């Protein structure tokens, strides 16, 4: 019996380290890895999904060798006629097609990449795809904007605005120090991984309080101290009302961290008559009012005695608007942005919000007071020898809460509320978990340096006339439409995917017809199930001229493929991957380094390791030099193979075997991490599993680096966002593009709170439907067994999930069900104006009377085992015409439906 160390990264909380017990040539069982207890936030444990990996690997329904389509007609009801072929044949077909496709710089006549690559499952494919990214890099232009659900079905607004404001791809509570966590639908117990569950369990031991605000009693609400059943997509109103309580009902000297507001935010910046910061005429720096000597000074003047936050002052200066427009003013009345915030938020009372949210007025008011009472304003704590503010209150947001219309508002209000009590990026408060749009991904501190106006540097996609992208090189047009998505490696994955699918082969106003990609490669994704409006996705996929899918089992997407290529499962492949210091969730490590994923037994079927595949394709297509070059340059681990202390570079054009490549990467990584002191090769990792060095815990908080640079968060006033939006409007209107006008409205300095129901109902009327016919909101929730993971074909997961409320069908409020004559397990029809699904009824008390809940994304019709589960999919009910995209390019994961008992 042997224990083989490896990692699990089936969801975005990983990697989590564990051991596989191997006996008599069989991977016998899965165990935690206690050796890493002190460095890993999961303490060497893994969640339920990892225990399903053996069943995943040994699943007899796996695709056993490459498959080639024999029926050229593609469609859901067409038999693809797949026949087994050898790997040599499969690679020859693929690489011939790739060579044919490459053309001039890889772009077609319309300027779009000829090759598109679809990857799914949030961040997890990178942990399994070996050197595949190096192959893609070597290829050149690729369209990644046909993705399978990550992006628009994520914490989208938080990704965009979070990174913009505080380098926060996802916001997390500093749970080990937090006293009060207010969670708007953030479902840690289902999607926070082993580390999330563990950290909150320890916090419960400590007596912290968690208030869960969401339309149904989720897995997380079950272990929360309080569940507040809020109406779907009204979270912004609740948050705005709490900001109102702090600013308009409480003593602001007590409810706010005033020194923090004065020094770390744009609260003191004076706003001119046109709504832009009033600036010094010469330096163009924003002005503040110094109460000490009653004069206006630039925000960074060294002699400021006391920043004015409130009041009205007469100053002279200049405002800068879009496209370099300037307005000079002499002795005009200006107010600090904080004063304007107070005036703006006055309208959003708890009484107003209570009606919208269907939550008692006193609940909103009480929670606002609890936030202040627990904030410990003025107190400090010592971390790594430095004294930092201690503000043990955090506010987190869930997925549906912050995608689609209202996402900007929710993120803004949450971050402003956090800012008011000084709890942003300090111990105990709300902190960023990682960054992905900005670099380096694993070190938030290093991405921060001074930018304009006293804020951290941000490089949005250009909106000025000279640099705006009039001819985007991807089908979602993200660099054209989404300034906050930036244009870095992760940007396509945060783009507005539905637009790419919708516009393909379709005529849209004043944009060139979007072409189909000539070749599409798919890895670990099933867009037929996970994207909105599944019918449209199938229709478009059937048109792909050549579609190659890496495949595990037959499924709803590779049903449309020309070629299916079975890759190794998680326990069969070889790969080194980064661990720590933090990832996409609250997985804060005390060390960071690298862990190995390694084959625990011989491959079970005739599948291929992704690095073997990538090297072979690179060789056959003639890309070996660039492929090796990409690996040398650090594309795989962020580590260059040639460092100051060692040289493990791959020779240009030489073909290496997979073990040799990873051995060099192991050595280079450990040398880089140990400052040239220790070199550990592949065999060492195979024995020991991981290599890590301590990570200073203070670096999990941005506050010290903000203080060091003398920077302010670009909060609460969104002057630049407004300017960018106005420039974008100018560019689009100059090109006679008006179909993005609704989105342009959102670029506001203080975003008006939107009525999501009205937005949906207006869209509904536009397509001739009557919103009154649909009386329930349908929302999705997660269960841990299926949160990401791609394990719908693993029977043991479904068996476990059946013990989770709602997994088997549709959760409906028990009293409402009774009125409709619906009992447990009755088959009900759930109908939007676009489609209809059937589901088993699951009447429960823990769901609002106006809400239906589906768990996960199912509705499979091809995947073995999953197709027999009979569990519905929300995506079947969504329609592109009523799913309104927000300015960040995301859609809300909700739809209005009616429910009938089947007779």
């Amino acid at each position, binding site marked *: 019996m042997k224990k083989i160390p490896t990692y699990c990264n089936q969801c975005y909380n990983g990697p989590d380290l564990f051991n596989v017990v191997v006996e*008599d040539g*069989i*991977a*016998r*069982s*899965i*165990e*935690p890895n*206690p050796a890493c207890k002190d460095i890993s936030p*999961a303490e060497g*444990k*893994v*969640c*339920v999904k990892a*225990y*399903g990996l*053996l*069943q995943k*690997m*040994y*699943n*007899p*329904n796996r695709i056993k060798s490459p498959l080639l389509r024999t029926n050229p007609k593609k469609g859901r009801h067409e038999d693809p006629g797949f026949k087994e072929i050898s790997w040599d044949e499969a690679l020859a077909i693929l690489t011939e097609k790739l060579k044919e496709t490459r053309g001039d710089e890889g772009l077609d006549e319309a300027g779009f990449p000829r090759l598109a690559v679809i990857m799914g499952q949030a961040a997890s494919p990178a942990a399994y795809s070996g050197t595949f990214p190096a192959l893609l890099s070597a290829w050149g232009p690729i369209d990644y904007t046909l993705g399978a659900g990550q992006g628009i079905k994520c914490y989208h607004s938080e990704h965009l605005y979070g990174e913009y404001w505080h380098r926060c791809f996802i916001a997390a509570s500093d749970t080990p120090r937090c006293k009060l966590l207010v969670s708007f639908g953030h479902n840690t*117990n289902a999607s926070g991984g*082993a580390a999330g*569950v*563990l950290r909150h*369990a*320890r916090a*419960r*031991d400590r007596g912290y309080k968690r208030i869960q605000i969401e339309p149904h*009693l989720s*897995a*997380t*609400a*079950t*272990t929360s*101290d309080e*569940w507040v*059943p809020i109406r779907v997509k009204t979270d912004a109103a609740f948050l705005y009302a709490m900001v109102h309580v702090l600013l308009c009902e409480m003593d602001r000297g007590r409810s706010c961290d005033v020194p923090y507001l004065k020094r770390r935010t744009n609260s003191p910046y004076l706003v001119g008559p046109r709504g832009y910061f009033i600036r010094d005429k010469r330096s163009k720096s924003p002005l503040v009012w110094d109460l000490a000597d009653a004069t206006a000074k630039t925000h960074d003047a060294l002699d400021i005695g006391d920043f004015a936050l409130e009041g009205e002052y007469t100053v002279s200066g200049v405002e800068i608007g879009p496209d370099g427009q300037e307005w000079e003013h002499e002795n005009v009345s200006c107010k600090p942005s904080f004063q304007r915030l107070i005036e703006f938020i006055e309208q959003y009372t708890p009484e107003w919000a209570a009606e919208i949210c269907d939550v008692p007025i006193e609940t909103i008011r009480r929670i606002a007071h609890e936030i202040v009472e627990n904030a410990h304003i003025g107190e400090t704590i010592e971390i790594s020898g430095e004294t930092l503010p201690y503000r043990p209150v955090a506010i987190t947001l869930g997925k549906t809460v912050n995608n689609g219309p209202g996402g900007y508002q929710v993120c803004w209000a949450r971050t402003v509320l956090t800012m008011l009590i000084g709890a942003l990026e300090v111990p105990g408060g709300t902190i960023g978990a990682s960054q992905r749009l900005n670099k380096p991904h694993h070190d938030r501190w290093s991405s921060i340096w001074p930018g304009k106006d006293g804020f951290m540097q941000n490089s949005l996609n250009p909106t000025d006339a000279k640099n705006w992208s009039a001819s985007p090189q991807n089908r979602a047009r993200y660099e054209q439409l989404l300034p906050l998505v930036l244009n870095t490696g992760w940007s396509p994955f945060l783009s507005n995917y539905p637009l790419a699918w919708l516009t393909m082969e379709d005529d849209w106003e004043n944009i060139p017809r979007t072409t189909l990609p000539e070749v599409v490669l798919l890895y670990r994704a099933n867009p037929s199930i996970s994207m909105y409006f599944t019918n449209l996705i199938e229709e478009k996929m059937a048109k792909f001229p050549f579609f190659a899918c890496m495949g595990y089992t037959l499924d709803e997407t590779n049903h449309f493929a020309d070629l299916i290529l079975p890759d190794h499962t998680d326990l069969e492949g070889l790969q080194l991957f980064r661990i720590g210091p933090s990832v996409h969730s609250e997985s804060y490590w005390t060390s960071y380094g690298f862990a190995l994923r390694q084959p625990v037994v011989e491959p*079970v079927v005739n599948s291929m390791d992704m690095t073997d595949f990538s090297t072979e394709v690179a060789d056959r297509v003639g890309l070996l030099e660039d492929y090796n070059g990409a690996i040398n340059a650090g594309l795989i681990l962020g580590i260059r193979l040639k460092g100051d202390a060692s040289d493990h570079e791959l020779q240009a054009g030489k073909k290496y075997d997979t073990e040799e490549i990873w051995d060099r990467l192991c050595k280079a990584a450990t040398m880089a991490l140990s400052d040239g002191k220790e070199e550990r090769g592949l065999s060492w990792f195979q024995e020991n599993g991981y290599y890590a060095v301590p990570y200073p815990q203070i670096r999990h908080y941005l506050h010290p680096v903000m203080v060091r640079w003398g920077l302010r968060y670009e909060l609460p006033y969104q002057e630049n966002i407004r300017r960018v939006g106005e420039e974008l409007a100018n560019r689009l209107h100059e090109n006679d593009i008006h179909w993005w006008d609704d989105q342009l409205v959102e670029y506001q300095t203080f975003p008006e709170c939107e009525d999501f129901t009205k937005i949906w109902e207006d869209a509904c009327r536009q397509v001739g439907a009557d919103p009154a016919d649909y009386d329930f909101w349908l929302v999705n929730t997660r269960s*841990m*067994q299926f949160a990401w993971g791609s394990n719908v074909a693993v*029977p*043991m*997961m479904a*068996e*476990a999930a059946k*013990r*989770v*409320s709602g997994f088997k069908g549709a959760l409906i*409020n*028990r*009293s409402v069900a009774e009125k409709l004559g619906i009992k447990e397990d009755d088959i009900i029809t759930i109908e939007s104006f676009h489609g209809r699904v059937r589901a088993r009824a699951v009447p*429960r*008390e*823990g*769901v*609002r*009377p106006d809400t239906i809940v589906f768990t996960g994304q199912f509705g499979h019709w091809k995947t073995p085992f999953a197709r027999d589960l009979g569990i519905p999919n929300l995506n079947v009910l969504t329609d592109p015409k009523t799913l309104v995209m927000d300015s960040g390019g995301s859609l809300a994961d909700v739809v209005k439906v009616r429910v009938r008992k089947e007779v």
Partner: protein
Amino acid sequence: MPRWGMVVDLEKCTGCQTCSVACKVENALGPMTDRVVVVEKEMGTYPNVQRIHIPKRCMHCADPKCVGVCPSGATQQRDDGIVTVDQDMCVGCRYCMMACPYNARVFQAVEQSYHSPPSKWEVQRYKEHTVGVVGKCDFCKSRIDEGLQGGLKPGVDPDATPMCVISCIGTALTFGDLDDPASEVSQLIESRETVQFLPEMQTDPSIYYLPRRR
């Protein structure tokens, strides 16, 4: 001689089912043969609702009702309190299932597999158990016994502790010697209000539950 027992913190169980699936993998259990289940219970009416998760398994009672009724002697209680079933001696009469007040035993009439035909893993590992007999949680006694032989301490050292306990990501399960006042289980029982299920049955289970605080 220790008396092995467990404390289950209902405040912290999230119902993730990691323990139940880890148990199935460790013990090579087929479908519908769970030895550990985590059941949900909803209480109250909207909007004042709670849902709790209750991990359930053999209670390893101090006075186990299953032992006396077993005609073949397959069900035994060890000196350390663990109640076991000898698969070679069990005749599948299921008297023990009738006698168990906790519904903690399962009978596997025929070999069942998740896959048809069974996977390579199932073919190999299902050999570890017999069909037509009763199964139940044995606190992973082989881990405890081998761990003790290796000088390890059950409840402290992972390799000597039941799989459900070491796999629990919510720290809801604690294992140890109920007769050792210094053990973590004894300390928890001493310091918190605890519940043993069905006290009226006078079985004195070795599983103690810490109820929810609210």
